[in-house]
């Protein structure tokens, strides 16, 4: 079974600065999909970015980008020019292409605080 680990329970960043959230995973599969979700105080889960393991190029979405290191099984999220609205819980998730129902396996989350 796959596991996802987020080793930073909390992170803090100054507004307009850059912060990186860490995620590692354990899998024996060669093809899979990785996701970062944002959960603001409203509790709704919002997809931030996704990465296909077979793609070497790191995914980017505006101020959000990932550093995908397949050999190291690492999938970190970089937030540039942090904004107050970025404050939230961030969850890393793994999906196997072979898993029944395309289930997501989540990490424990990182709470990001943004200081004005």
């Amino acid at each position, binding site marked *: 079974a796959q596991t*996802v680990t*987020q080793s930073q*329970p909390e992170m803090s960043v100054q507004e307009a600065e850059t912060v990186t959230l860490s995620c590692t995973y354990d899998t024996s599969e060669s093809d*899979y*999909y990785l996701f970062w*979700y944002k959960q603001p105080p*409203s*509790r*709704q*889960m*919002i*997809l931030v970015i*996704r990465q*296909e393991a077979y793609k070497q190029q790191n995914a980017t979405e505006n101020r959000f980008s990932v550093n995908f290191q397949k050999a190291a099984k690492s999938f970190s999220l970089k937030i540039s020019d942090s904004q107050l609205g970025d404050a939230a819980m961030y*969850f890393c*998730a793994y*999906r*196997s*292409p072979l898993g*029944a*129902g*395309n*289930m*997501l*396996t*989540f*990490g*424990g*989350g990182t709470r990001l605080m943004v200081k004005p």
Partner: protein
Amino acid sequence: NAGVTQTPKFRVLKTGQSMTLLCAQDMNHEYMYWYRQDPGMGLRLIHYSVGEGTTAKGEVPDGYNVSRLKKQNFLLGLESAAPSQTSVYFCASGRTGVSTDTQYFGPGTRLTVL
């Protein structure tokens, strides 16, 4: 377009009581999921459905039942609530079984069992 909605938003139960959580999606998605989120932990899959009339167990199914009588609705039932089921419950839906497909989440239901 409402997306994924959940009813109710909050609920308090006494041990042994039963209740049903309703999830509805208006995106014509085939796949639907129920997760629970506990403090300090990521979401864990309870049950899921790959289409109308089908259900399957996820990672933590014990104490829960589900039904998918209509494509747009996915119900989660607690037959005899226990304090260990105090959690926030999330419903999600997905368009197809394609692995890159995004799961769309509802706003969550906070359940407290006394």
